[in-house]
């Protein structure tokens, strides 16, 4: 799935969809009711207009029930055009359908990035103004009942669109900030626990292991199996603790590798920057292996963002007969002519790969622009050297 700011925004809305959607649908229903009321109150009831008011009800139902449709810019455009069509059909820009048209601006205002929403806020009154000029009641002249009518009709759209857009952007920023703080707090807490485990419990385990293993060859033969067993158990306990410590300190925070990478991709995308996609799934991996793989891919992503001038970066995870292959491919300018295989970033990745028994290849893509980083993790990856004697 591609990760863009737009998507974050969409998720923000769809995430707690119920109250927001209920409000939107209620606004539409109200706009439709207003239109019906006004048309019925007219001295001469136009039955065509009454039929047209059904559009309000139908579109409200579509928005409420079909998330794919309500997320599509094509639908927003059609929806808005249909409401304008109703206004045109009523033969007067001071139409009962004006409010319905206003509600059609809400979806794009909320889902578009703020910059585009501002453009919409500028365009909307201009569109309505030209509709008023060229449509009814008198083409070529506006004929407002009072100048207030005109001002209200032209001011409401920008206020609604800019207000909604700004509120959504602020909400999004607040939510991102909260998520970031929560993550930092969790990370700090995990590190504290890891440090305490490492600093006290693990040192005591080492001491106990030393003491028990020193009994070897010094106890009566019938006690030897017990001493041996105790020594092995203590050694295993220390190894288990290493695993837990690695998990606690791991950037994956207990998530599968692909989930952690998707989250990382979301953190890295910027407005106007390349799109990052993460495809495929990783099997359960030993925590140290997963942590190193995560850091290698993070480094590759950072390199691509910093140097490649790419527009898309693809991260793929695929299982191979030998284990797991992770690819990071960008469509940027590729490796520089004066290729520096010893560049610090690449060396760090290489060193990480080596410590988990993985193979790392960094190369320009065959016949295509861009760079490709391949990491081959062996299936039963060996215990990382860092944790052994």
């Amino acid at each position: 799935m591609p990760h863009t700011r737009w998507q974050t925004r969409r998720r923000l809305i769809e995430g707690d969809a119920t109250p927001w959607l209920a409000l939107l649908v209620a606004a539409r229903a109200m706009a439709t009711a207003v239109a019906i009321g006004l048309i019925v109150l007219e001295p001469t009831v136009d039955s065509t207009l009454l039929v047209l008011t059904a559009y309000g009800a139908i579109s409200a139902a579509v928005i409420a029930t079909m998330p794919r449709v309500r997320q599509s810019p094509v639908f927003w455009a059609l929806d808005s055009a249909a409401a304008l069509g109703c206004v045109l059909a009523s033969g007067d820009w001071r139409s009962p359908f004006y409010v319905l048209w206003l509600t059609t601006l809400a979806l794009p205002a909320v889902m578009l990035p703020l910059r585009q929403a501002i453009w919409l806020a500028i365009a909307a009154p201009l569109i309505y103004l030209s509709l008023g000029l060229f449509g009814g009641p008198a083409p070529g002249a506006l004929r407002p009942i009072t100048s207030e009518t005109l001002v209200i009709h032209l001011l409401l759209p920008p206020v609604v669109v800019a207000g909604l857009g700004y509120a959504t952007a602020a909400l999004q920023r607040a939510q991102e900030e909260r998520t970031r703080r929560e993550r930092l707090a969790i990370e700090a807490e995990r590190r504290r626990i890891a440090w305490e485990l490492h600093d006290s419990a693990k040192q005591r385990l080492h001491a106990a292991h030393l003491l028990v293993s020193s009994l070897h060859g010094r106890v009566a033969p019938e006690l030897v199996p017990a001493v041996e067993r105790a020594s092995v158990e203590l050694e295993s306990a220390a190894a288990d603790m290493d695993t837990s410590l690695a998990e606690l300190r791991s950037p994956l925070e207990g998530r599968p590798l692909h989930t952690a990478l998707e989250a990382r991709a979301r953190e890295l995308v910027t407005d106007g920057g390349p799109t990052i996609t993460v495809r495929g799934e990783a099997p359960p991996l030993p925590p140290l292996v997963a942590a190193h793989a995560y850091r290698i891919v993070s480094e590759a992503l950072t390199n691509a963002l910093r140097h490649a001038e790419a527009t898309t970066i693809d991260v793929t995870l695929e299982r191979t007969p030998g284990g797991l292959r992770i690819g990071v491919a960008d469509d940027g300018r590729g490796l520089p002519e004066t290729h520096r295989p010893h560049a610090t970033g690449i060396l760090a990745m290489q060193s990480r790969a080596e410590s988990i028994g993985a193979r790392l290849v960094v190369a320009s893509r065959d016949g295509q622009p861009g760079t490709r980083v391949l990491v081959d993790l062996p299936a039963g990856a060996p215990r990382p050297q860092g944790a052994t004697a």
Partner: protein
Amino acid sequence: MIRIAVIDDHPALRAGLRTVIDAEPGLVFVGESAGDEESVWPLLRRTEPDLILLDYHLPHGDGLQLCHRIKRQLPVPKTPKVLVYSAYASPELSLPAALAGADGVVDKGLAARELFEAIRLVHRGERLLGDPSQTVVRSELERLEERDRALVGLLLNGAGDAEAAEALQMEPSEVQHATLRILGTLRAQVPTGAS
């Protein structure tokens, strides 16, 4: 008789080491310190140990920097052997340990008899520094400046501070400061078990 001092900030581990070392024929536990400046130097001057078991992770400083200073400040023939005792004896530790003048690196997870064997080997004059791969060494050197790399090369090839100073046209005291600084830089690269 091998006289051993232990520098480690974990009381439980020091107590365990004292018990097992005292129980082993041929080894004597002569004293312990938590690694703070106030207790390390009096301990070493008083006991003049043959070998120091030195924790890599000290709370107030770096075990390897301490190792470097011990080797410089206790002159021959009183220079003790130093065995760096680390919870994660990773390959990245070999280069800085060699630079600090340590005689060996052992993992804290070793069984008592393996530790004793390491102690005896080092006391006999062998070096237990492991053999890191080319990639590891290269990536560590990559972090250093050109001038520091030259110094590391000289020192690892067995040059003394004075020789290195002459070759690089520095003061001998500058060489010592540079070595301590390089140890600090390299420390940031040694994994602590997870990253």
